[in-house]
């Protein structure tokens, strides 16, 4: 599995160079500008995109995942279920293509401090054929001390997540990105790994000037060489599949979706999603972003 992972990451990097070599040299006097409208928001459901607003922009993020739909109309397909999750976040763009943020979630009362840097932007004449973005966060689990066992240390609350995103606006209506991520939690339940590597594929199909079909797929990898568990252990985190619809305006992006993961902090989704991709495990959710420029 490790070889497969190395092959995928290496393939992403090599393919970037291959695309670049296919292009004719740009006119030296004309600056090749970044492509327009690759993504409408910095978030795609519960994943990050390469989009970062202009400098000195404040972004409010409201994320919500309701309970699963298995109870049908008795709890209005999960909307009235108690097992929901909410995250409120604030992001601020401190420099060109650099964003820092903070958020707090209902589940485990995670406080997450995050940063995102879009290193490369895809350009209109393919001088740079892809977006390349780094994202990372550090989260503090706000659960009670007893949750972490009899010998509690503050460091038990810490988990972190880092991600390399490579994306491309393929056509005027289709954008896609792939990502590889690494998550670590200092404290986990028994028979859970402390480290997890994941692969992600996210896409957007624009069907109207302000409307798009959106989709994310998150795959936690089972890599025996970094697993602390015995080979017979079979309770590994499950992949997450989410699809929805996005409407965007000048200052808002509104995404409504259905998916099988309950987390809103990425390491929680990667390490603690044990819901299979099954009809009854799907839950309705939404993500709203609101921008203010200063």
């Amino acid at each position, binding site marked *: 599995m490790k070889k497969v992972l190395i092959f995928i990451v290496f393939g992403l990097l090599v393919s970037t160079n291959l695309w670049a070599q296919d292009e004719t040299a740009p006119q030296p006097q004309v600056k090749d500008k970044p492509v*327009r409208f690759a993504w409408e928001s910095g978030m795609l459901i519960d994943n990050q995109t390469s989009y970062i607003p202009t400098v000195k922009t404040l972004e409010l993020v409201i994320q919500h995942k309701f309970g699963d739909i298995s109870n049908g109309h008795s709890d209005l397909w999960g909307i009235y279920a108690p097992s929901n999750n909410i995250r409120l976040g604030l992001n601020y763009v401190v420099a060109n293509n650099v964003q820092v943020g903070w958020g707090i979630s209902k589940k485990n009362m995670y406080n997450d401090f995050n940063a995102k840097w879009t290193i490369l932007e895809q350009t209109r004449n393919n001088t740079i054929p892809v977006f390349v973005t780094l994202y990372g966060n550090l989260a503090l689990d706000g659960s009670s001390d007893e949750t972490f066992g009899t010998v509690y240390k503050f460091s038990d609350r810490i988990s972190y997540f880092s991600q390399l995103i490579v994306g491309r606006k393929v056509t005027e209506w289709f954008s896609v990105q792939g990502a590889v991520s690494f998550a670590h939690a200092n404290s986990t339940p028994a028979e859970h790994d402390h480290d997890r590597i994941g692969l992600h594929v996210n896409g957007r199909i624009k069907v109207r000037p302000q409307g798009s079909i959106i989709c994310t797929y998150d795959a936690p990898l089972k890599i025996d060489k970094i697993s602390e568990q015995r080979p017979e252990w079979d309770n590994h985190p499950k992949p997450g599949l989410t699809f929805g619809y996005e409407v965007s305006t*000048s*200052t808002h992006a509104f995404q409504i979706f259905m998916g099988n993961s309950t987390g809103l902090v990425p390491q929680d989704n990667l390490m603690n999603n044990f819901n299979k991709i099954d009809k009854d495990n799907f839950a309705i959710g939404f993500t709203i972003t609101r921008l203010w420029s200063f």
Partner: protein
Amino acid sequence: MKKYTNVFVLLMVVISTGLLLSFATVQDKKDGGPWNVPEKYKTMQNAHNGDEGLVKIGKMHYIKHCKSCHGGDGLGDGPKAASMKTKMNSFKSAEFQSQKDGVIYYQSFIGRDEMPNFESKIPDDEDRWAVVNYLRTLK
């Protein structure tokens, strides 16, 4: 019969009040008055004048940033227009279209009062001219 008369009178009062209030709402919208456009913008040249390839880009920006107030056809009748205190003029009007490109640029991106500044939302100058070019197609 008297009961029906009372209902009819009540209905007429409600309709009349509604009509009067609708007039009041329209009349409450103030005229923004003439724009105080700096000389720099009055003489500004549209570097992308006649670039038809940019019209589609301008339309995309218009739909995303302008349509909610100014309406799909630029008549000033978007969903948010009703809550504005200032009267919005139609982009189709001869008065609007007779303005220089630089003046429209100033009005669109620098703004004043209820018309917000859009410089940070559309940072690329080429894209701003694309919007101006698109507004020209609305006449």
